C-alpha cells in the first residue's frame, strides 16, 4: 500500500483542516471542552463525516476494516490531537468486537450497517464491585419463552449513556464458572422505558469529557437473536475479542507519544537558556533521545503486534497481552521524561500550547488501565509461562508467519478470527525466532553490514532472553496467588519480546531502508540499549551516547519520528 492511498494519510489531511482556527480539533477548542468536562461532539461528528466508523467493520461484513495496522494508524492520527475524541469515537470498535469474532453472518452484517450509519456501540464488561474479575459478574440473563431477560448493572463503561447499542457480558448459569456467561448485543433503542437506565457520568482525572458511565437493566427483555456466539461461551468470546481490542488500543498511546514529543521539541527549539536554545544543551538532548527511543520501541511492538493478528493469529493471546502491557507503560515513562524537560510548561494549563501537554499526560493514564490493565495483561503472560518455556526449549516457531508479521511489505492475509485461541500452544514466535535472527545478524556482521557494537548488543539480548526463560522454568506454578516476582519476570519477558520485534523488523528492512534512523542501525542500537537496561544487563559505559545521536535526528526531523513510512509522510507538526 502506498502512502497516498493509506486511510490514515487521508484522515490526517482532513484533520489538518480541523485542528486550526475554531475547528473542533483546534488546541484551544480541545482545552476548553476538557475544562468544561464536555464531550467532544463536534470532533466525533467530523470523524463520522470522514467515515471512520466503516474502518471498525471488517470487509467481510460490509465495512472497510481490512488490516488492523491501518486501524492503528487511523486512531494514532486522531489520538495525537485529542485522546478524548479518539477514545470516545473508537469505543464502537470495541463494542462490535464480539460480533466480529463469533456473531453469525446476519448479526454481523446488521451491526456493520448500523455502525456505518453512525450507530455508537458500547461494551459492558466490568461491574462496580468486581473490576477485572469477569467471572464474578452478577448481571444476569435468564431464559424466557421468547428470549432472555437481563437484570443488573455494568459500571465504568465508556459510552454507556451515549451508545445506541451495547454488548453485554451476562451470567447465564446461576453458578457462573467459565461456561456460565454469555454475550448479548442489546439495542437500547428497542427497550421500553423502565427496562434500563443509564448511570451518571463519573468525573475523571483524564479524558474529562468522555462518557464514562454505566447502565442498569431491570427486567429488560431481549430476543434470541441478541445472543452473540454460544450460550455459555461468553467468557471465551470476550477473552478472544479482547485480543483484538488490546492490540489496536495501544494506537492511543502512540498518538499521545507523537503529541508529547512534538510539543517538547517545539518548546525546546524556541526556549532560550544561557543564550543557547534549550534543544542544543546536552542536558536536553539525552532525555529527548531517550524519549524518542521509547516511542520507536512502542511503535515496533505495536506494528508487530497488530500484524500478528493476521499472520500469527493463534499466538494473539500472547502478542496482545505483551503489546498492551508494554506500550502504554513505555509511553507513560516517555511522557514523564519529557515532562521533566518541559519543566513548568508541562504543568501549566494556559501558558504553552493551550496546556495540551498536561492534558495528554492526564488523558494517557487511562490507556494502561482500560481494556485490561498492565497487571491483568502480565498475569495473562504468567499463565502461559509453562507453554513459553516448552516452546523455547523446543525451538518452535511459525517461521512463515513471523516473516509476514515483521516485514512491512509482505501482504497480510485476512485475519481469520476463528483461529483465535485462549492460549498459544506454540508459544511466541517473535521471541522464539530470536536465535535464528541472531544467526542472520552474524552473517551480516561478517560482511560488514552491521556495526560490531550493535551486533554485540543484540547478542547480549539473546543471552538475556535465554536467562529469562531459565527463570521462568524455575518459577513455581501459580494457579491462584501470583507472587510479585512473577510480574517482574513477565516485565522482563516483555522486554525480550520488544527487543526481538525490533531485531526482526531491522533485519527485514535494513537492506533497502534509508534515512538517518536506519543509518548505522541507529534506531536498532537505541532500542537495544533501552531493552537491555530494562533487563538489568550492563552495557558499555558510553552505550547511552546513542540517545544523543538519536536526539539529533529527532530535532532535525521534518515530521513525526517513526519507523513506518506511512506515518512519516503524514507531515504535520
Amino acid at each position: 500500500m502506498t502512502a497516498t492511498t493509506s486511510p490514515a494519510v487521508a484522515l490526517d489531511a482532513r484533520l489538518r483542516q480541523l485542528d486550526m482556527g475554531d475547528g473542533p480539533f483546534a488546541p484551544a477548542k480541545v482545552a476548553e471542552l476538557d475544562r468544561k468536562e464536555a464531550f467532544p461532539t463536534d470532533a466525533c461528528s467530523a470523524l463520522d463525516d470522514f467515515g471512520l466508523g466503516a474502518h471498525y467493520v471488517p470487509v467481510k461484513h460490509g465495512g472497510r476494516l481490512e488490516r488492523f495496522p491501518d486501524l492503528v494508524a487511523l486512531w494514532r492520527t486522531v489520538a495525537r490531537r485529542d485522546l478524548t475524541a479518539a477514545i470516545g469515537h473508537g469505543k464502537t470498535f470495541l463494542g462490535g468486537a464480539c460480533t466480529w469474532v463469533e456473531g453469525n453472518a446476519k448479526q454481523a452484517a446488521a451491526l456493520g450497517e448500523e455502525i456505518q450509519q453512525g450507530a455508537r456501540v458500547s461494551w459492558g464488561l466490568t461491574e462496580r464491585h468486581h473490576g477485572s474479575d469477569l467471572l464474578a459478574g452478577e448481571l444476569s440473563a435468564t431464559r424466557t419463552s421468547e428470549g432472555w431477560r437481563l437484570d443488573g448493572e455494568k459500571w465504568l463503561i465508556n459510552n454507556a449513556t451515549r451508545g445506541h447499542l451495547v454488548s453485554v457480558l451476562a451470567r447465564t448459569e446461576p453458578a457462573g464458572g467459565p461456561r456460565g456467561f454469555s454475550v448479548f448485543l442489546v439495542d437500547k433503542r428497542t427497550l421500553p422505558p423502565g427496562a434500563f437506565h443509564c448511570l451518571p457520568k463519573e468525573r475523571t482525572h483524564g479524558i474529562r469529557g468522555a462518557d464514562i458511565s454505566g447502565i442498569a437493566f431491570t427486567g429488560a427483555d431481549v430476543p434470541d437473536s441478541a445472543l452473540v456466539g454460544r450460550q455459555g461461551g461468553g467468557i471465551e468470546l470476550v477473552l478472544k475479542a479482547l485480543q483484538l481490542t488490546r492490540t489496536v488500543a495501544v494506537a492511543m498511546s502512540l498518538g499521545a507519544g507523537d503529541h508529547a514529543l512534538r510539543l517538547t521539541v517545539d518548546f525546546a527549539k524556541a526556549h532560550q537558556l544561557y543564550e543557547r536554545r534549550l534543544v542544543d544543551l546536552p542536558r536536553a538532548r539525552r532525555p529527548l533521545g531517550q524519549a524518542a527511543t521509547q516511542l520507536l520501541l512502542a511503535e515496533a511492538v505495536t506494528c508487530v503486534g497488530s500484524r500478528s493478528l493476521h499472520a500469527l493469529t493463534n499466538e494473539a493471546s500472547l502478542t496482545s497481552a505483551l503489546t498492551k502491557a508494554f506500550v502504554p507503560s513505555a509511553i507513560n515513562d516517555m511522557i514523564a521524561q519529557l515532562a521533566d524537560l518541559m519543566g513548568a510548561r508541562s504543568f501549566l494549563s494556559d501558558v504553552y500550547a493551550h496546556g495540551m501537554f498536561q492534558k495528554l499526560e492526564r488523558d494517557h493514564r487511562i490507556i494502561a488501565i482500560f481494556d485490561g490493565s498492565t497487571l491483568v495483561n502480565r498475569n495473562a503472560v504468567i499463565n502461559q509461562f509453562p507453554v513459553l518455556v516448552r516452546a523455547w526449549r523446543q525451538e518452535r516457531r511459525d517461521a512463515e508467519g513471523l516473516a509476514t508479521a515483521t516485514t512491512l511489505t509482505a501482504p497480510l492475509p485476512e485475519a481469520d478470527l476463528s483461529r483465535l485461541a485462549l492460549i498459544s500452544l506454540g508459544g511466541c514466535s517473535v521471541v522464539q525466532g530470536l536465535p535464528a535472527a541472531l544467526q542472520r545478524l552474524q552473517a551480516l556482521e561478517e560482511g560488514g553490514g552491521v556495526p560490531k557494537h550493535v551486533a554485540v548488543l543484540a547478542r547480549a539480548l539473546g543471552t538475556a532472553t535465554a536467562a529469562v526463560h531459565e527463570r521462568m522454568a524455575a518459577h513455581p506454578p501459580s494457579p491462584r496467588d501470583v507472587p510479585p516476582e512473577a510480574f517482574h519476570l513477565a516485565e522482563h519477558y516483555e522486554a525480550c519480546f520488544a527487543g526481538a520485534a525490533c531485531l526482526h523488523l531491522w533485519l527485514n528492512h535494513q537492506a533497502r531502508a534509508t534515512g538517518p534512523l536506519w543509518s548505522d542501525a541507529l534506531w536498532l542500537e537505541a532500542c537495544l540499549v533501552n531493552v537491555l537496561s530494562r533487563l538489568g544487563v550492563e552495557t558499555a559505559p558510553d552505550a547511552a551516547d546513542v540517545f544523543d545521536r538519536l536526539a539529533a535526528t529527532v530535532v532535525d526531523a521534518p515530521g513525526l519520528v517513526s519507523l513506518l513510512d506511512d506515518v512519516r509522510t503524514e507531515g504535520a507538526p
Partner: protein
Amino acid sequence: MPSIPSAEALSSWLSARIATYVQRKPDEIRADVPLAEYGLDSVYALTLAGDLEDHLGLSLDPTLMWDHPTIAGLTQALLQVLAGA
C-alpha cells in the same frame, strides 16, 4: 498415531499434574471434584492443554478443561478425542 493410554493411567497422570499445579499430594485430588475447588484458576487450567499435548502427542482445544472440569470428565473426553484421532 498416538497410542491410547488406559483410563486409569490417564487419570493418575492428570492427578499428578494438577497436584503439582495446586501444590498438593496427588492422592488428595479426587476425580469427581471440580478442579476449581482445589484452587486451580479457570484461565490457568488452560495451560494443562500444553502438558497434555506433550504427553499424548496431539493438539487439543484448551477449553476442553472448561467443558469437562473434573478429572473423571476430562479423562473420558480425552479418551474420546484419542479414539477419534
